[in-house]
């Protein structure tokens, strides 16, 4: 018996005219690679989203912010959280991690 394994990787893109799929970033895949498209509903317009947020009561608006405070008050400290990097160090660290992940 032969077992064929498949690796699934996700890429973001949009459907264009005539069903052509355009990915937002060029993937490291050879031409002819088979793809399976899972479609997401389009997002509401920016204006709709702004109106939805503006319509929230002050109490409703604050809930996720309060949840961040609760997370701070109830979670274990991260091992090095008192050693905050400087702005320059943080930019460098983020770049390094991004490059490692590329």
């Amino acid at each position, binding site marked *: 018996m032969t077992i064929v394994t498949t690796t699934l990787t996700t890429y*973001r893109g*949009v459907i264009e005219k005539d069903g052509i799929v*355009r990915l*937002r*970033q060029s993937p490291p895949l050879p031409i002819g690679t088979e793809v399976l498209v899972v479609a997401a509903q*389009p*997002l509401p317009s*920016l204006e709709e*989203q*702004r109106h939805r*947020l503006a319509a929230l009561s002050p109490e409703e*608006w*604050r*809930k*996720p*912010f309060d*949840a*961040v*405070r*609760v*997370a*701070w008050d*109830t*979670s*274990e*400290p*991260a*091992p*090095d*959280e008192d*050693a*905050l*990097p400087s*702005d320059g160090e*943080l*930019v460098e*660290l*983020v*770049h*390094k*991690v*991004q*490059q*490692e*992940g*590329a």
Partner: protein
Amino acid sequence: MPSAVIDLTEMVRMAMQRPEHSRLFQAWEKQAFIWITSESLLDEFIEVTDRPKFRRLIRPLVRDAIVEALRARACIVEPALELPHCHDPKDDNVIAAAIAARPCYLVTADRDLYDDADLVATLRDLEVCVVQVGEFLDVL
């Protein structure tokens, strides 16, 4: 109310700081600006902060609560497909979100971006104003 796309470094910085110490968090909570992001930027934020280096600096529960807050209290845009030339592809995500949300601010800690005079001018023509976080918070 102004809108702003916040770059990855400033998102990470906010996640490292208690809310009472983060001017960015406070300005967002006070609705001094509308935070604009994209699923790509959120994915990148999650991916970067999951790395061991950042897990030593950021509490996972806090990171998760910030992601939830962004999904609930930020506007999420489909990133623009057409982008001006940028020297560093790592900046594409934040630039694509800002162009989709224009007119807006693009708040960045990245010198590669804010020191690139040609790119900053091109983005200004596209109604995207590139600023550092202190400058942005001062104009609110």
